[in-house]
């Protein structure tokens, strides 16, 4: 039957599923549907799973007949995903009560979504990766449409579902073709059997379909068009969650699949991926410039960041993957922080997150303004924040491999992006509101989140080398 390595290898995932079931039961016990207990229980589940994941550092390995890999790289991202889950739980309840969404429906789905992402990062087989993607996606479809009074929420969920299922079909077709060529669906088996620089046409088609599937999941151009609509329509805590979590999980899988398993066939997909990376960051930044809604602006900004991250996959090699992981951690922190601010600043009270709401908010709410400044500086890549060092490491790794043109495009894009990030700060500190705006509510959980995320961003910004070395040591 199962050995103890098997059980230990999936212990964090196991804990999350148990938490999800307990939360469901707890919700059932209370007929009125006002169960406050689900929030602390979910939080305990995420923190517990995160601690157990961290405990598995240097203790894990391959489990379940090499289907699951619980190496240190998995550990790092399990901890990050649990952190993202915990932060989302912290910032959700006030918003959910305001929008009249049931907490007992929301939290189990959120936990299952994190579970799906953890399966994605710990998969060593394309079948298991596919199951992780689907567990995540199906939970997210429901989460996106939970705001049932708002028709935009339903619209976002349906767009997400159609394009998500469409991309999954491509992903799966890629798996099937690689299986036809190599006879394996495991990363190791594909790597063993697909080493030629000019593989047969079936394998090329398989790699292409797999790439299309991944490009949809990370919202890379030209497969990005779902993401702004979905980000705008979904409940804001879910937007925050899905702008960071699935992206991190998908990039970890990209490293494992394209960076390592398909490295031998790099000639086939490298140029295509480099062009996609350049287009993704350029389109994301250019369109973000003219957005007036902060959720859409951050959606296009996250498309642009996917472009920067793809540079790491194109560059390849241990240094680039360590830098990519660093960027993923930094990106998760700054985007969660920025969306937390976006959740709070809704000063006209109509649930439509216009940039106008930010006028004059900086002096009226010093803590909010200061933390937003840190998030925006970090997103724009200005020192001494984590975002700056993420870009520095990533781009220098790419230059080292000779991708100078790509890095030049990326740096020009960063300069362009600084305009729309800093514009928000300009609104906050230098503009006066044209009419009376409501004050931003003060809520303990949000304040805590803002301080925590901005403190970690500054901490990583102060000691970037330690963080990079940790990630370097974790690489497979």
């Amino acid at each position, binding site marked *: 039957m199962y050995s103890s390595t098997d059980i230990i290898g999936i212990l964090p995932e196991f804990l999350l599923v148990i938490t999800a079931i307990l939360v469901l039961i707890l919700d059932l016990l209370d007929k009125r549907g006002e169960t406050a207990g689900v929030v602390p229980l979910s939080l305990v589940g995420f923190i517990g799973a995160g601690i157990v994941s961290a405990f598995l550092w240097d203790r894990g390995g391959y489990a379940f007949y090499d289907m699951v890999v619980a190496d240190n790289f998995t550990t790092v991202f399990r901890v990050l995903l649990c952190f993202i889950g915990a932060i989302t739980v912290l910032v959700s309840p006030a918003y959910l009560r305001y929008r009249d969404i049931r907490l007992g429906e929301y939290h189990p789905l959120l936990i299952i979504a994190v579970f799906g992402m953890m399966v994605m990062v710990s998969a060593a087989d394309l*079948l298991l990766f*596919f*199951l992780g993607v*689907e567990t995540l*996606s*199906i939970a997210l*479809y*429901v989460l996106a*449409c939970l705001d*049932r009074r708002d*028709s*935009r929420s*339903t*619209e*976002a*969920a*349906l*767009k997400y*579902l*159609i394009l998500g*299922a*469409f991309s*999954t*079909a491509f992903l*799966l*077709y890629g*798996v*099937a*073709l690689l*299986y*036809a060529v190599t*006879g394996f*669906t495991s990363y190791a088996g594909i790597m063993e059997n697909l080493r030629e620089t000019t593989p047969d046409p*079936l394998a090329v088609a398989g790699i292409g379909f797999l790439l299309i599937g991944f490009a949809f999941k990370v919202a890379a151009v030209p497969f990005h068009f779902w993401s*702004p*609509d979905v980000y*705008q*329509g979904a409940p804001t805590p879910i937007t925050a969650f899905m702008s960071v979590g699935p992206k991190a999980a998908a990039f970890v899988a990209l490293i494992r699949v394209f960076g390592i398993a398909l490295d031998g066939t790099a000639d086939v997909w490298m140029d295509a991926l480099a062009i996609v990376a350049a287009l993704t960051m350029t389109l994301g930044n250019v*369109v973000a410039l003219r957005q007036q809604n902060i959720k859409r602006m951050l959606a296009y900004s996250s498309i642009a960041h996917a472009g920067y991250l793809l540079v790491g996959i194109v560059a390849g090699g241990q240094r680039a993957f360590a830098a990519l992981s660093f960027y993923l951690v930094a990106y998760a922190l700054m985007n969660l922080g920025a969306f937390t601010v976006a959740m709070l600043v809704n000063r006209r009270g109509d649930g439509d997150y216009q940039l106008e709401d930010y006028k004059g908010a900086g002096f009226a709410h010093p803590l909010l303004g200061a933390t937003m400044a840190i998030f925006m500086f970090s997103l724009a890549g200005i020192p001494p924040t984590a975002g700056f060092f993420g870009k520095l490491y990533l781009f220098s790794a790419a230059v080292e491999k000779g991708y100078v043109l790509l890095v030049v495009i990326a740096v020009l894009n960063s300069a362009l992006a600084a305009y729309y990030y800093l514009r928000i700060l300009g609104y906050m500190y230098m503009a006066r509101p044209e009419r009376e705006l409501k004050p931003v509510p003060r809520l303990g959980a949000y304040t805590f989140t803002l301080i925590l995320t901005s403190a970690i961003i500054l901490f990583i910004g102060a000691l970037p080398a330690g963080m990079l070395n940790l990630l370097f040591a974790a690489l497979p």
Partner: protein
Amino acid sequence: MTIQLSHYLLLSAVLFSIGAAGVLTRKNLIVIFMALELMMNAVNLSFVAVARYMGDAAGQLIVFFVICVAAAEVAVGLAILIALWRHKGSMHIDTLAAMKW
């Protein structure tokens, strides 16, 4: 002429293309869902044919997972469609145009 693996793979590719074209061109959301199912099942055909050809049971097992996932996806999808119907009273793709650019 005997039917070989390549014939199955070709049929699967044709079905997949029909499905993809259906998703991109059809206007009724239910028909789009059907096209999505066709794409999934085209992939299933590839898996089964390859598994039979190589004498490897793994491919056939994968099909069960795919069927299961596709069923879950459609269940959620139809539920969301009902929510959409309550808001808009239509199944036409043009009802999904409140958010653009």
